[in-house]
């Protein structure tokens, strides 16, 4: 089973995206993906309640195809954010959390700790657009949470530094790396697997911001055992989300 672990749904003028579940499922069909893990852009950047509800509505239309990440637009909503995560888990059937860190408002702060703790309790992996340095802080605080470093450091705020991402992931057993990225460096996936093992690498495309083809090919063209490839291409994210294949 192939699962795209990093997909965006909804609207963001900043990212020049406006896409619904039907369009994303068509892309998934074309790419041969069985499931896609989506995060709503309104929830991620503006209003968590509105955006997560919109995602839930799309999930209902494609219950076998869309897995939901609840999203928060900030760490700083205290109990309101905790309640939203619980609602997304229990009422909406979402399996993970997505959150975005920026240099202006980093998630590596004490306000994030209760969010990590509730996700650990609810067994919701967190996909975070964050830096290796931020991951060190967060994983040191709540090492039991399953934490996925979106883009494996290969994003602007992390200075594209996937080598550092690997080094940090070596230190924390529950820190995982997401392969979605503009970077298509030769040897990137090999280096991840050699240092961390295939169980800690998760395939994602960042559709519809990025073209999914290079994201697939950079893994398909890596010398991996069939077992490792299956883990990366879907087994790992399903295991973390507690979803049966």
């Amino acid at each position, binding site marked *: 089973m192939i699962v795209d672990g990093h997909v965006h749904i909804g609207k963001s003028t900043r*990212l*020049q995206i406006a896409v619904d579940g039907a369009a994303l499922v068509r892309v998934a069909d074309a790419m041969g993906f069985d499931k896609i893990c989506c995060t709503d852009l309104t929830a991620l950047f503006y209003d968590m309640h509105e955006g997560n509800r919109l995602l839930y509505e799309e999930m209902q239309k494609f219950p076998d195809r869309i897995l939901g990440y609840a999203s928060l637009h900030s760490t700083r909503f205290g109990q309101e954010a905790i309640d939203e995560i619980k609602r997304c888990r229990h009422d909406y059937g979402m399996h993970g959390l997505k959150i975005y860190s920026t240099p202006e408002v980093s998630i590596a702060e004490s306000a994030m700790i209760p969010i990590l703790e509730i996700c650990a309790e609810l067994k919701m992996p967190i996909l975070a657009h964050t830096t290796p340095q931020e991951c060190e802080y967060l994983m040191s605080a709540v090492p039991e949470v399953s934490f996925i470093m979106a883009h494996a450091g*290969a*994003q*602007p705020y*992390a*200075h*594209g*530094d996937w*080598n550092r991402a690997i080094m940090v992931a070596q230190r924390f057993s529950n820190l995982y790396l997401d392969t979605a990225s*503009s*970077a*298509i*460096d*030769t*040897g*990137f996936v090999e*280096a991840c697997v050699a240092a961390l093992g295939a169980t800690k690498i998760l395939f994602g495309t960042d*559709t*519809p*911001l*990025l*073209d*999914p*083809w*290079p*994201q*697939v*090919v*950079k893994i398909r*063209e890596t010398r991996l055992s069939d077992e490792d490839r299956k883990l990366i291409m879907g087994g790992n994210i399903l295991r973390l989300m507690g979803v049966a294949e």
Partner: protein
Amino acid sequence: MIYDANAFIGKWPYWPIRSSAPSQVVGELEGWSIDRAVICSTRSVFVNWEDGNVETEAAVRQYPTHFTPFACLGTLELSHVLPRHTYDFADYMSRGFRGVRLYPQHHSYHLLYEAFVDSILEDAASRGWPVLLPLRIIMNWGLPLLDLSVMEALVIRHPRVNWILSGINYLYELQLAISLMRRFPTVHLETSCVMGYTAIAKIVQQCGAQRLLFGSGAPVQHGAAALSKVLHAPLPDSDLEAILGTNLQRLLGEL
């Protein structure tokens, strides 16, 4: 024929790569079904551009059917010598070079304030040599970037140059490239860092397919991944053929 507008030979200083020698790069390109590539040596970027050009020249002598050499040019003013005042383009031509690459973000000069840049570009324009101008060397968010407005100003200042914009990814970077392509028929774009969703088709829709050139960034970047976004772009075969090779052949005067 798949003809790559942006590849390298040479070592990569930031992290280990599996191929750097010309023979290894040839092997990688063949493995990715890339028939031929425009190259320069990374020594030109990171150590000394003249020494790198010597390496490039030697690689092309060794693999003439696989490589096309571009000369990497930089400042003539170094700490230990008085500045010279000319670039010997006739010599570069006699050595087989077919175009120019500039890496100001790695060579500590400003594109708009150094007279030698204008000298290079005027000579390149008069000879019809393409000039590759990279926003970034490969698609990595941590490596030095050019200022987009400086790229635009340089193109406006030298509209006769056959430009190959390089290192362009998505959003406003791509919008600038498309804007320049629409304004100037001499502006081309190579695809090594273009990663946006359906970006290849969008560029063709707005600018046509004739000035889009496949580029890989190999061997630092993965050639098959770079190729995939072009091969799977929803375009007619004639456009794909143009992007994958004939546009570059035409630009280099090989057709």
